[in-house]
């Protein structure tokens, strides 16, 4: 019986050579280990074996079983690997063919620039408030210290609507609207659409966007020095390292008034045709809120003061994107829009 077992083992291992095919392996498995295989048969014949020998034979059967099983396992592993290798090769893809694209839109550049500005300003402690486009004379002009018939009104050619209404000519109405609802201290930015009677052209449009910002606190706490600091920081974050300068100016609703220039983005201060050889480009208007504006919202200018600024989004976007035709923003040509990122936010 021992010899018989040795013979089973020898034959099995001989057939289970390194290059054994799957079929052979399966045959050996069935023949040796199967339900009616050789080893099972031996175990069935155990009662004919002398009791003293039974444990020895039993052990030998188990050893052979384990050995053959291990061998089969190893061969099957090997066979599976070979099989996989073959199937992989036949499943080869041309990886240079196009993928299945999930469509993704593009954010309008004016939104992108506006959001970028708002992100920077919010990071500096301003909060966003939206106000209305359809306005009355009081909120767009009178409360902002534009007396009736004052030539300053001619600077902003207004669209008039029925019922004494108008389309706001600037987002400065936001100062009045917000201050009618809320009291200082406040740091607010009001983005939104503005309208002026200009034909759509390379340089002008009848509708555009502005961001108005203002910061008000008790008298003496917020000064023009802070206006300079905040806007300088803003310009550096938004335009990158650039030189800035402030110039005196005039707006009815600020006193003192100023304008902020940055180094011309085209010539970096050297002077070119675009900046009329001054080396500078105007970016925004600003100033300390005029006492009459504070009075219009029933704040005592002896108790409160603050600064305000306003900038055009499209104009600034032209500058930053280095393009020179405003109409591109209104055409919505997908070949233009497609060049802007597919995420709504700014750069941060």
């Amino acid at each position: 019986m021992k010899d018989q077992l040795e013979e089973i083992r020898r034959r099995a291992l001989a057939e289970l050579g390194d290059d054994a095919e799957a079929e052979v392996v399966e045959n050996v498995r069935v023949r040796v280990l199967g339900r009616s295989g050789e080893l099972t048969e031996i175990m069935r014949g155990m009662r004919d074996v002398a009791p003293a020998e039974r444990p020895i034979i039993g052990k030998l059967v188990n050893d052979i079983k384990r050995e053959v099983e291990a061998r089969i396992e190893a061969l099957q592993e090997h066979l599976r690997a070979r099989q996989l290798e073959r199937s992989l090769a036949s499943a080869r893809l041309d990886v240079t063919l196009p993928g299945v694209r999930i469509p993704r839109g593009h954010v309008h550049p004016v939104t992108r620039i506006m959001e970028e500005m708002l992100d920077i300003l919010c990071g500096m402690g301003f909060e966003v408030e939206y106000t209305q486009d359809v306005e009355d004379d009081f909120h767009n002009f009178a409360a902002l210290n534009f007396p009736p018939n004052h030539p300053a009104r001619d600077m902003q050619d207004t669209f008039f609507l029925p019922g004494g209404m108008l389309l706001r000519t600037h987002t400065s109405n936001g100062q009045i609207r917000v201050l009618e609802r809320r009291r200082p201290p406040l740091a607010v930015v009001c983005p939104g659409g503005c309208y002026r009677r200009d034909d759509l052209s390379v340089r002008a449009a009848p509708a555009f966007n502005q961001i108005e910002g203002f910061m008000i606190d008790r008298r003496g706490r917020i000064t023009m020095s802070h206006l300079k600091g905040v806007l300088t920081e803003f310009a550096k974050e938004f335009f990158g390292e650039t030189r800035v300068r402030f110039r005196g100016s005039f707006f009815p609703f600020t006193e003192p008034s100023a304008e902020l220039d940055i180094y011309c983005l085209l010539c970096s201060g050297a002077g070119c045709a675009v900046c009329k050889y001054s080396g500078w480009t105007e970016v925004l208007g600003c100033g300390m809120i005029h006492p009459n504006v504070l009075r219009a919202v029933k704040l005592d200018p002896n108790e409160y003061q603050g600064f305000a600024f306003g900038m055009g989004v499209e104009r600034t976007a032209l500058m930053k994107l280095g393009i020179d035709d405003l109409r591109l923003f209104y055409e919505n040509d997908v070949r233009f829009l497609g060049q802007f990122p597919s995420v709504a936010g700014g750069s941060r």
Partner: protein
Amino acid sequence: MKLPLSWLREFVQIDAPAREIADRLSAAGLVVENIEQVEPAFQGVVVAHVIEAGRHPNADRLSLCQVDAGSKGHFSVVCGAPNVHSGMKAALALVGARLAGADKGQHGDGVPRLENVPPLEAAVIRGVRSEGMLCSERELMLSTEHAGILELPADAPVGTDLADFLMLPDTVLDVEITPNRGDCLSIIGLAREVAAIFGLELNIPRPRRVRGKAASEALPRFSVEIAAPDLCPRYAALAMTRVKIGPSPILIRRRLELCGMRALNNVVDATNYVMIEMGQPLHAFDLEKISGGAIIVRRADGDREFTTLDNVRRELQSNDLLITDQQKPLAIAGVMGGLNSEVSDSTTTILLESAYFEPDTIARTSRRLQLHSEASYRFARGIDRAGQATALARVAELIASSAKARTAGELVDIEARPAPAREITFDLSVVETLTGASLAPAETRRRLNAIGARTRPAGRGMLTVVPPPWRGDLNEPADLAEEVVRLGGLDDIPSGLPPRTSTRAVANPARVFFKNTREIMLGAGLDEVRTLAFTAPADNQRFSGIAQGVEPVKVENPLSMELSELRLSLLPGLTAALRFNLNRQAAAFHAFEIGKVFMTRDGGAAESLVLSAISYGPYLIAEIGHKGIDGGFFSLKGILQSWADAMNIGSRLAFRTASPSEVPFLHPARAAEVVLDDERVGYIGELHPGEAMRLELNAPCAVTELDLAKFISYGFAPRETIELPPRFPAIRRDAALVLERDLPADSVIKAVREVAPPVLESVEVFDVYEGQGIAPGRKSVALACRYRAKDRTLTDEEVNRLHSAVVEHTLKRLGAELRQ
């Protein structure tokens, strides 16, 4: 405002280069837009004395002149001008001179460069040698005048280079004057600024006093009455006789031209010259045309119309301020004079007006009449409240010299309403409180004095400041603080950051909503567009928006008919953008816009915020081995649903078949109203085939528009409670129901829900089929029902029982049968 530096230097001795003057004016709030270098269009031309102008021996029309050019020599010159005469001073182009204007007309409009012009040669004209040429203004390119030669003033120094004599070359700054600075609409005003900025002396010569007593001749009589002192507080007038109308001296004409004004005659030019120099608009009447010699300043009242000197008949309103005589209006005060009293070539007696009119009345009238003159421009911005008599004296001085006229009688100066005393108590610390700049009190005071304010100490750290009468814009301490920092170009103000504790910023929920909405729309493949709020009436009729029965808002002063209304919907803009892109070979257009629409409400205008989208053409692009998806109703609806799901309001958003009358621009069989919590908030559908045809589309175009007001208030709300993922498996049972074709799938779901056991987790339609095997007029709807209990695994028998009950109810409810 044009500022020739030669003129500026009459009042302030400034040597700084033009660029520096420009930069520092700009920094102080007077932006210099341009620096123009004015070069003479000639060289080699000198002032010469025509000693004798005799006849040319061989030509009647020509003169042969003996000309003295001082150190340059003595010349014999042939001249064809009719006005050449012995004793005159003229411009002599020497042999070798170059005249850019000499052959103007032969070269078209272009001005040749001086170095390209051939030098003048001595010539023999009709047998006589001419050693040079006496020049007309056109040849010197000083004006277009070519009827005769230029006659120079009698005191012009012989032999001087003409360019030097005329103060050419010159530099002209173009200064942008903000509306608050009427005082800078004058050379002297700008000179004062320059002096203040550079710390220089301002030197304004006083005009000669008007002497009342002229010759013994009879003086013309006139009177002045101010009947509207509220609109005209001050009116000064002066008569001049023996006026000889003619051209102005070359210097005056030259400067007017540099400042953008056309020269007319020696009287009108003088008034314009003084206006530019001092900022006081002046007017000259022909005194003989003033009935009774009476000047009355009054409101138009009953006068209805008036013809201004540009020969346009103007309609008047009763509040317009007029200058009249006893019978008729003579001028619209401060705006424009009349044709009936204009100075003409035959005028010999004039009445000069120098008045102060209230800015408001002039601005109102000139704006209403759309008549903006140099005078009204200045009056509207506010002129010197006290400068009338001085300007009158100055203009009299000029006219006396240029028109050989004499003043007749005293200068009449009526002040019907004195200027209110203006005193500002100025706490010097205000400069620092407001701007952060710490300036020495003495420097602050110096700057205030430099702009013409009078200051006197008023106790510790206080000044009493009397602003100058030409600065109507200075009324309170903040105004003075601005003057102080402005003159330093704002450089005295340090740059600092505000105290962080002063405010507490909160994220704006609407902005978060916009950002997230944009993000989802972009992620769904829609490009963001921005279109104009203005549209054509036809577009508003076509795309009437979400709300029904609303009237569009008409713009009262539109740019054009095409932009004469405010949009009721974003669709006009979106469809135009679609067409724009299709015209440029785009195959697809999927876009959205968040924007405002406008409607008439209570006689006024109201606005609301909407989200609109359009989807046309291939959406998921077909690739090798993959089918594409075209944009259409369901892909756009899916986008809205994903968006609502992301906002956690997906289950509250419903779509109901829309009645065509609500959305006439949509396909009547492919339109839905969008409902949020049972409230109609918008629509979605495919464009009506008629619209599609108008837009020349050849595939379905889906559009949607939602009123965002409701959505913003919901924001992106988080779920109130978070549920754990289910622990027990779900069991799915399907059912295919055959029912009436027109019954919406939604009603099947609703029927199921009526008897849904608590363990029915979800029910969805996963297929709809019509055609073979289904009776005509009916369709098969395949439902997937998913059952799950929270606390145990359901058994098959349990689910089968529940499911058949659900199906049975649904069949009965809808008159449906099971599909075999």
